[in-house]
């Protein structure tokens, strides 16, 4: 795959310029549009690898754009918005966005999120059908058939729920999963009593998984929103 295409949907000139300049410095190929209708059109015609989406567009709500695109495409969508409430983040993520960046954001942060998304695209494109029985991410490996997880070839001892959580995060690598989504998938409910359990299981899982839990490599916490499994750099990637 050469030169990933990025679609930038942003109606504000200054922020649009900032993003454009940032992408130019990194030699990404990109295309800028300023409203929802163009965004949908270009998403179809240009087939970008990643979409950077502002929620507050003049013609339609960003959440609707996410829902429309999700009906036919799985491309990573990174929301870039001035709406900073947790509820807004959760709404966008639940609608199908992969990541959420609040304005004002730092350029490094934007690039980091972009790299995570592109890594997912790269991985998805390389994935072949026979790999579906195992999962590999950096030094982490999951053998779905055996129901075991390994780090550097050493088995990690996980409780059934921790294992289920790990699998769920692994299957959605690169995507921020909201608390409610995880509770629904693992416990089949969203009752408040399970929320503390989720926090505890994630903490214990992370302790078993991460080499240095205070600088997590695999599981990222988005406080008030959810968790995300990060795709590790593959060999040969810059």
């Amino acid at each position, binding site marked *: 795959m050469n030169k990933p295409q990025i679609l930038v949907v942003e109606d504000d000139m200054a922020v649009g310029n900032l993003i454009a300049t940032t992408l130019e410095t990194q030699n990404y190929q990109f295309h800028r549009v300023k409203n929802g209708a163009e965004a949908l059109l270009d998403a179809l015609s240009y087939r970008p690898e990643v979409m950077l989406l502002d929620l507050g567009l003049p013609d339609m709500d960003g959440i609707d754009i996410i829902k429309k695109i999700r009906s036919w495409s799985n491309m990573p969508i990174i929301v870039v918005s001035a709406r900073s409430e*947790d*509820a807004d983040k959760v709404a966008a993520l639940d609608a199908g966005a992969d990541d959420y960046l609040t304005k*004002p954001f730092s350029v490094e942060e934007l690039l980091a999120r972009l790299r995570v998304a592109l890594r997912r695209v790269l991985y998805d494109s390389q994935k072949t059908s026979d790999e579906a029985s195992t999962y590999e991410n950096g030094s982490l490996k999951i053998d779905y058939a055996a129901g075991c997880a390994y780090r550097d070839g050493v088995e990690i001892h996980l*409780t*059934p*729920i921790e294992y289920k959580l790990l699998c769920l995060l692994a299957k959605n690598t690169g995507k921020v999963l909201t*608390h409610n989504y995880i509770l629904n998938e693992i416990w089949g409910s969203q009752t408040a*009593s399970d*929320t*503390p*359990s989720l*926090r*505890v*299981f994630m*903490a*214990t899982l992370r302790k078993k998984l991460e080499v240095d839990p*205070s600088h997590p490599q695999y599981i990222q*916490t988005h*406080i*008030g929103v959810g968790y995300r499994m990060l795709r590790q750099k593959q060999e040969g990637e810059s």
Partner: protein
Amino acid sequence: MLVCLSAAPSNARAIQAAAWLKEGSHATLTALTVETPAFSSMSEEERRRYQAHLQMAETLGARTATVYGDDPALQVAEYARISGITGVVLAPADLCQSRLGPARGAVDRLRKLAPELDLHLISDRGQPRVGPRRGWSLGLQARISLRDTLRTAAVLAVCTLAGLLLVRLGFAATNAILIYLLGVLGIAMLTDGRGYSLISSLLSVLIFNYFFTYPYFTLLSDPGYLATFAVMFLVALLGSSLTTRVKRQAVQSADRAYRTEVLLETSQKLQKAEGVQSIVSVIDGQLGKLLERDLFLYLVGEDGALQAPLRFSHANGSDWAACFSDDERAAAEWVLAHNKSAGAGTGNLPDRACLYLAVRGTERVLAVVGIDLRESAELGAFEKNLMVAILDECGLALEKEVMRRAKQELEETARQEALRANLLRGISHDLRTPLTSISGNAGILLENGCVLDENKRRALYRSIYDDAMWLIHLVENLLSITRMENGSMKLNIQPELLYDVFQEALSHLDRNAGRHHIELELPDDLLMADMDARLIVQVVINLVNNAVKYTPEGSHILISARAQGDWVLVNVADDGPGVPDGEKKKLFEMFYTLNNTSGDGRRGLGLGLALCKAIVTAHGGRIAVTDNQPKGALFSFTLPVSEVNTHE
């Protein structure tokens, strides 16, 4: 203006006249009922008429009141004196409920007792004089009960046996007379109604005649005894009616005592009550105890419409659905619109199953009480009056509460206005500095960017970046604090790991924080607290940034958290110069900054700590600053701990 209520037919005209006078003079009208001993023995027809008069008075906008006593004239005079009433409208018959003395006499008495009152007399002419005649009809219309009849017979039989025994023992037959008198008094005490007194008086004379006067066992007797019989009958009759009256008065004074007690208790409870909820529960408790019927209450919302009903069950197995049908609700709304009672037992919408009463303040209806009357009959006058008195009192309490709230809101608005003004003043001053720096530096770079050397340019970029970051923090804090202050912020409380919170906070610290040693100490890394994570992260960021700002480079900052009973205690400690004692309290005030004098030197709106306090307080916790040992400042706050219940 006062009008006396009574069952006399002329009373309706009196009420009408009083209403006209009231309209003319813009006075308030009170309809006064004097409950005399005769009141409880009114005939059905009279009772209905009285109720009709009461309703009529209410319809014409009168406040109703009830007093108790034997002498209506005296009661009216007393009430007028206490309530500052200047004019009384009455038909003379209204004052004759005691049927003692002629109507004219009562009016004269009233005139004598209260010479300053304007009396407006409505003529009784053309109306049947029911007052005096009623007494006799009442006396004869006794309620016959098997129990009382048996008692009467038993007492008379005992008296006869005792009399016979005395005669057999050689005592004079006259002793028997006294025994019968005693018996008749006893009967008066044991039975209800005057009928038994009258009958027993008559019977005792006849029996005495039969058993103790020659010729024995006949009703014939020596004419010399006729005087004896007559006196005996009169003494028996007078004695028994006096006893009956005393008994009635005892009942009445018990009622009065009960009434006073209930009202006193109500007002005591209302005094203690705080907030609408507790006033409502007083209404529920007091009315429930009094009526033992199911109640429900519609509070009037701020939009002036009825809110959803609150139910209070005091009788068993009630079927609420019937009380909340559209028809019933319409009756409640009618009460709200007209400020009059309606429903069962009243003149308005009497076909409804429930009785609806308005809980009034001085001007408007504050709530509507519904009383389920399907199970049992109409309420008695005593209960009804007491109920109205309780509701009036509750109405006043509710109004006070409403007014208190309005005042509080006003104060709150004023405070917010002051806050906003301060905020604007603070902002316009403190925003200028970083904005000047940003625009100035950017200007230099635009104009002379190529002339400057690399290091100079970097310094300018850095300065722009730092000032922009400072503005970002400021805007973040400002947004949060305005949301906290105007109460529109809804906390999104979730159990969160303190560890995650600290990690998140540490990743958002100022650039300058790199020159301080920041450490984390968390004995239990699964420690959780209930919080709105985003806000608490902001609290921690603010506290740490503060510590960074006010301590020299290289100082140590320790962030720690531990459980303490039901709370999690979070500490942010530094080993800088600390906070002087005098400043500690003021620190959490808005727009307060340490070294306030230094003007342009150190920037800060003094919002950070005020925001921390607002956030922590909204979580139910406390925030404080103390001295760190051996030196420095220690900021600590508490959050409710979350119970972890992991089940796999």
